[in-house]
C-alpha cells in the first residue's frame, strides 16, 4: 500500500514536527509554573503520573478521551476539506442541553430504549445546529468560520437563558437543569469512570477511519482541502459536499455532546463543556493528529492525560489547573507552523500555474 509506504525520514520528520511544538509549549509553560513559584519538572510529573501510571488513572483518561476523539474527528473532517467549522462547541453544548432536557422528561423509558434514542437525538441536534452555516456556505459562500463562531456566542446565550429560567432545576443551588433520569445514564464499567460510551466512540472511530482513508467521500474531502478547483473540475460537486461534510461534522459533535452528558455531566450547567470547551479541545487534537484518525486517537488520549492531570496539579501544587489552557494555546500556536510545511510543496508551483493565462 503505497499510501503508508512513507520512507523513514519523512516519518521521522513528521513525528518531529509534531513533538517539537509540544516541547516548546512545555518549555514556555515551565516559565508560567515558575511564576506560580513551583518546580516545573515535579509539576509536569504530577500532570502525567496521576493519569497514566495506574489502571484507574488510565481508565479515567480513556473516559475523558472519548468526547475528545469525537470532537477532534468533527474538526478534522471539516478542516481537512478546507472548511473552518468553528461551531463544534455550539453543536456540542446544544446537543448536551437537549439530551439533558429529554433525559429528564423521558426518564420513564427503559435504558435500552432511552440511551440509543438520546444518542440519536444528540446527533440530530448537532446536525440541525450545523445546518444553517452549512447551507449558507454551500449555497452562498458565506464565510463559515465567522458565522459558526458568532453562532456559538448566540447559542451559549440562549442556553444560558433557558437553563436559568424555563428549565432551571429549582432545587439546585446554581444554574443547572434537572438531572437526567437513571435510565438515561450510560453505565460505568466496574468501579472505573470508563463507560460504554467509550466503546461507542471507538466504533465510530473505526467507521471514520474508513471514511477518511478508504471512502469516496474521504477522497473528495482530501481533494477539496488541497485544491478546490481541482475537486470541482473533477466532478466532486464541492457545494453539495460542503453541506455533507459540515453536517457530518455536526453529527460527530452532537454525539460527543450527548455522550458527555449521559456519561459524565448528567445535567446541563454553564460549565458543561469546560474551559475553553470540548470543541476547542477538538481543534488542538485535530491539528496535533494531523487530521488523520490514528493521529487524532493518539492526540486525544495525550490531551486527556493532560486534562485529567491538570486537576491533580491544582490539588498537589500551587499551579492553577489553568496551566492546561496555556499549554493548549501554546501547542496550537507552534503547530500552526508545521501545518504549513506539508502544504508548501503544492503552493509554489500552483501559484505559477495560476498565473498562467491570468493576465487576461
Amino acid at each position, binding site marked *: *500500500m*503505497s*499510501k503508508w*509506504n512513507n520512507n523513514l525520514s519523512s516519518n521521522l520528520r513528521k513525528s518531529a514536527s509534531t513533538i517539537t511544538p509540544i516541547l516548546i509549549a512545555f518549555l514556555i509553560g515551565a516559565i508560567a509554573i515558575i511564576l506560580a513559584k513551583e518546580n516545573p519538572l515535579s509539576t509536569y510529573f504530577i500532570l502525567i503520573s496521576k493519569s497514566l501510571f495506574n489502571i484507574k488513572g488510565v481508565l479515567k483518561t480513556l473516559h475523558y478521551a472519548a468526547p475528545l476523539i469525537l470532537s477532534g474527528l468533527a474538526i478534522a473532517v471539516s478542516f481537512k476539506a478546507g472548511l473552518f467549522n468553528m461551531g463544534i462547541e455550539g453543536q456540542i453544548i446544544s446537543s448536551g442541553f437537549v439530551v439533558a432536557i429529554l433525559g429528564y422528561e423521558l426518564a420513564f423509558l427503559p435504558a435500552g430504549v432511552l440511551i440509543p434514542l438520546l444518542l440519536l437525538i444528540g446527533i440530530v441536534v448537532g446536525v440541525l445546529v450545523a445546518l444553517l452555516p452549512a447551507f449558507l456556505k454551500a449555497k452562498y459562500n458565506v464565510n463559515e468560520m465567522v458565522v459558526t463562531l458568532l453562532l456559538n456566542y448566540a447559542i451559549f446565550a440562549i442556553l444560558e437563558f433557558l437553563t436559568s429560567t424555563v428549565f432551571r432545576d429549582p432545587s439546585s443551588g446554581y444554574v443547572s437543569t434537572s438531572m437526567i433520569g437513571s435510565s438515561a445514564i450510560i453505565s460505568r464499567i466496574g468501579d472505573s469512570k470508563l463507560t460504554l460510551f467509550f466503546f461507542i466512540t471507538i466504533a465510530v472511530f473505526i467507521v471514520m477511519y*474508513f471514511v477518511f482513508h*478508504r*471512502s*469516496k*467521500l474521504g*477522497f*473528495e474531502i*482530501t*481533494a477539496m482541502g*488541497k*485544491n478546490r*478547483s*481541482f*475537486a*470541482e*473540475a*473533477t*466532478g*466532486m*460537486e464541492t457545494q453539495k459536499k460542503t453541506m455533507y461534510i459540515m453536517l457530518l461534522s455536526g453529527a460527530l459533535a452532537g454525539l460527543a455532546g450527548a455522550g458527555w452528558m449521559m456519561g459524565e455531566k448528567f445535567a446541563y450547567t454553564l460549565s458543561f463543556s469546560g474551559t475553553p470547551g470540548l470543541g476547542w479541545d477538538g481543534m488542538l487534537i485535530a491539528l496535533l493528529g494531523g487530521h488523520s484518525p490514528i493521529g487524532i486517537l493518539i492526540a486525544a488520549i495525550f490531551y486527556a492525560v493532560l486534562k485529567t492531570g491538570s486537576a491533580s496539579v491544582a490539588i498537589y501544587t500551587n499551579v492553577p489547573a489553568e496551566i492546561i489552557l496555556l499549554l493548549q494555546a501554546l501547542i496550537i500556536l507552534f503547530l500552526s507552523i508545521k501545518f504549513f510545511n*506539508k*502544504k508548501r*510543496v*503544492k503552493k509554489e*508551483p*500552483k501559484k505559477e*500555474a*495560476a*498565473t*498562467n*493565462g*491570468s*493576465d*487576461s
Partner: protein
Amino acid sequence: MEIIKTANLTKMFGDFTANDKINMTVNAGEIKAIVGENGAGKTTLMNMLYGLLKPTTGEIYIKENKISFDSPTDAMSCGIGMVHQHFKLVPSLAVYENVLLGTEIEKKHKIGKKSFSLKIIDEKQEIKEVEELIEKYQFQINATDLIKNISVGARQKVEILKMLYRNVEILIFDEPTAVLTPQEIETFFVTLRELKKQGKTIILITHKLQEVMEVSDSVTVIKQGKVIGDMLTKNTSSKALARLMVGRDVLLKVDKKYRNYSKKPVVYKVENLTTINADNIKVVNNVSFEIHEGEIVGIAGVEGNGQSELLDLLTGILKATSGKVYLKGKEVSNFWPKKLRESKIAIIPEDRYAQGLCLDMLICENMIAGYHGNKEICKYGLISQKKMLDKLDCLIEDYDIRVSEKGGKISSLSGGNAQKIIIAREFDSDPDMLVAAQPTRGVDIGAIEYIHNSILGLQNTGKSILLVSSELSEIMNLSDRILVMFKGEIIGEVDAKNATREEIGYLMAGIRKENDDE
C-alpha cells in the same frame, strides 16, 4: 562594447544543474536573442542577471565591473530591467501608479523656509512625469487608465515604461510575444527597434525562431543549461537553430491527414451559448458551432477573448445564462463535470495544476480523479486501493509516463509527465468527445510531439475533438477547422488546410474578412 559578460556562471538547484558554466556576452545597443526549449535554463539565466536568483558559482560583469545582485532593485540600479512573461502589474491601480510603484513622489509642504512631507503622494506630479515619458516614446496609452481596463498589448507597454522610468539601459524581455496577436507583435518589434535606436540594449528570451530571425542582431542557444551556440543572426537560419536546440531534426509540423468531415454525423453541437461575468459583461456571446464525427475543431484567439470562459462552460465549471449544448443529439447544457464525464466527454483542462491535477495528492489518486466514482473502482462508497494501483500500473505502461516513484505525488513529476497523467486518465475513459485546452502549455518538445500524436491518434479512432490553444501553430497543425474568438464571439471560421497565419491574425485582432461583412 561589451555591456554584459558572464564567466562560468552556474546555478544549481539541489543536485540539478540549471545553468552550467555559462559564458556569454551582450554588446551595447544590440538586440540579443536567447533561445532554447522549455526547461533549457533561459529563465534561470535571466533571473540571475536580474537579481531574482543568486549564482551558485561564476561571475557577472556589467560594463566590465563585477557585480553581485541581492534583489531586482540592485539590478535596476545597475541599469538592468526585465519585462516578465506574466506581467507584474497591479490591476486596480492606474497606469501611472504602476509605472511609479516603489518610487512614488511625495508632496512637499513648506512652512517658512523649512520643508517637510506629510507622506502624501503627489498624484499630479506623478501623472505629469509619466505622460512625458509616454510622449517621449510615443506609446499610445493613457496614464490615468486602470490596468484592468486596458489591452494586453498596452499592459506590455506599461511594463516597458516601468523600466524606462527607472532609466535602465538593458531591457530583458521574457517570451514577450506569447500573449500578443500577430499584428501586435509587429507593433512590438517597432517598439524594440525604437528602443534600440535610443541606445538601449535588449535581450529577448524566446522559443519562436522566426521572431529571432526577424528582429535580433545576435543569438545564443541554450540547451540543458549549457551554451551550445552563439552567432550573428544573419549567419544562421530557423532550421539550423531548431536543430541546435533539440539536437536532431525536428518535424515542426505533425503528419496530419485532412479529410472532409461535413458529411459525417454531428457529434457535438453548441447553440447560442452565452454567459456573463460579475460585471454583467457577456464574456461568451452567442457562440455556436458543430463538430462532426472524427473531426478536430480548433479555437484560436488572443488570450482573454472568452476562450477560458467558453472552456469553463463546456467543462461544467461555469453556468451559461442561455444557449444549449448537445452531445450526439442529447442535451448536456449546464451539466456538472461529473455528469459530463458520465456522458462520455473527456476533459483536458486549461490550467493543469488548478483543475486537472492536484499537486499534493498521490499520482494514483490523480489517475482516477473524475472517474473515482466509477463502478469498477468504487463500490458501496469505498474505493478499492488495489484497483486504483492496478490502473496506475497499467496506464503508466500504456502512456509511457516516466515516474520516479509510483507512490509519489504529482509535484514530483515534470510538466510533460504530469500532462500525460491527464491524457491517460481522460483517454482511458473511452470518450465520444474530447475537450482539450492548452494541451502542451509549458511542456518540452518531446512531450509536445507525444501529446500531438496522441490527439491525432484519438481522432483516428473516430472521436471528435475540440482544441483550444493560445499557440497558433498548435491549432494550425492539429485542427481540421479553425474558429477564431474575439471579445466573446466567434468572429470567423477558416479551413485549417489552407489557412495562413496572417488571415487568422486579422481575425484574432477583430478584423473580419471582407466577404463576411456583406
